[in-house]
């Protein structure tokens, strides 16, 4: 469904990603784990078009459409902008939630549906409220006044409003109490089982490997390990570096 081939990204002269290749299949939950600064968020930001790969040979393909790079036997290099990528069905829940603080919960959800030209239907809201009943009570409240957990729910709910085919989640557990984390991760599973493919960046490797089908391990901008989550969870290197053994 999503394929990254040899993606390099740099900030100035610093190379943040070095020839990263990975893929996500339809229906999966794929996790990206690694230390802070390893390039996890950079990968997601690149997929969403907020960052541009530095190399022309790199390629990002979503559902046979080139988000970046040139298709074989074509000289035209695609480099889609964030808003077009959302329209293709790739929606990201950014790190730190980034809800629009001066807008109400309802307006935040409306923003989520921005990429669809038509007005969102009641059932779109219902689907979000089905996952996050708490948001329904707080529809009129300003997003900035919500608690951290509620903001995370709103951020995910907002992304769901665009009816994404692929949902990119950046550190959904960040700054949340363990109970809340569990709640949110169960919801993530629910979202996945109702048909949305998910790519997850998570610093809590236990959680990430438990919930995902497959995982990639990033270290200083390179993918050093990949495999099924169950295998990775048993990998001694992974256990030592990320699981605290």
């Amino acid at each position, binding site marked *: 469904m999503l394929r990254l081939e040899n993606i390099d990204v740099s900030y100035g002269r610093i190379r943040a990603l070095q020839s990263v290749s990975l893929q996500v299949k339809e229906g999966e939950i794929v996790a990206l784990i690694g230390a802070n600064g390893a390039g996890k968020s950079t990968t997601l930001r690149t997929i*969403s078009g907020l960052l541009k790969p530095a190399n022309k040979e790199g390629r990002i393909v979503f559902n046979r459409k080139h988000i970046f790079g040139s298709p074989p036997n074509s000289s035209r290099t695609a480099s889609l*902008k*964030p808003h077009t990528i959302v329209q293709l069905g790739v929606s990201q829940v950014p790190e730190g939630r980034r809800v*629009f603080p001066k807008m109400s919960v309802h307006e935040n959800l409306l*923003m*989520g549906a*921005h*990429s669809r030209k038509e007005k969102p239907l009641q059932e779109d809201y219902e689907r979000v409220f089905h996952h996050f009943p708490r948001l329904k009570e707080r529809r009129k409240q300003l997003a900035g006044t919500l608690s951290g957990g509620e903001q995370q729910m709103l951020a995910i709910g907002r992304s769901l409003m665009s009816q994404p085919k692929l949902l990119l989640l950046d550190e959904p557990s960040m700054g949340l109490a363990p109970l809340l984390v569990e709640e949110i991760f169960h919801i993530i599973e629910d979202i996945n089982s109702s048909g949305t493919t998910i790519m997850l960046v998570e610093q809590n490797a236990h959680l990430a490997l438990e919930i995902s089908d497959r995982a990639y391990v990033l270290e200083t901008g390179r993918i050093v390990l990949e495999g099924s989550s169950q295998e990775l969870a048993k990998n001694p290197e992974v256990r030592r570096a990320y699981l605290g053994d």
Partner: protein
Amino acid sequence: MKDLMQQLINGLALGSIYALIALGYTMVYGIISLINFAYGEIYMFGAFTGLILAATYKTNVVVALLGGMMLSLVLGVLIERVAYKPLRRSSRLSALISTIGVSIFLSTLMVLLKGPNTQGFPKLFENKVYAIGNFQITIYQIVIIGVAAFLMLALHLFVTYTRTGRAMRATAQDQDAAGLMGVNIDRIIATTFAIGSSLAGAAGVLAGIYFNAVQPYMGTMAGLKAFAAAVLGGIGSIPGAMLGGLMIGLLEVLSVTVNLSEYKDAFAFGILILVLLVKPSGIMGQKINKKV
């Protein structure tokens, strides 16, 4: 002080014009943090467009106003394209200097095209004076305040309730997040320039009608005052810009009332500095948290 009420009406009319220009400043600043020093010149351009439409093509008020707004809009978008967009990724100071370049360019261009003389505005409709109690209000004042209020209300409704308006607010709050929601940031920035410019254009035409004077350098001082108004109200805040504009207008008029008219401009800027010292983000501006 019996003419205080009269002075308030005078100030309200003047303030409405400042407020309209200030809206453009504040909207653009809210989204891309750029002080656009060319706004005063867009206001001037709007006034000249209105003048040309009314004098040469003998159009009526509505056409002159709409025409002035439309052409200013085009100019605003063109400025964004040429002088701002290529500089989006450079420092804000470069963008600032670029807008100063635009400002010098436009005012000089207008001197070359229309001469430096102040030009009167053709009478588009009969001015009448209504006496209410011991003060009076002219049709011009009613029109100025009315049109300004209408435009501000329309802008408020647009920003609050439309899809584009919502996207503009979202972009102002968090540009990246808005991009992730599918907002076309480039287009939103262009739209913001367009709306701000058309408001400045409207202010220009209204000022032309009300003051009956159009002149290539009219934008400089008006632009500075409107900028001050935007900051006073809290830059980035639309209601703040309206409030700031009205305040500066009233303040100027009141400084005349208390026999300090020679310090009129000092008053406007003095109050601005005072407000900034007490509340550095302006009257209705949000506090900016120091990020570590």
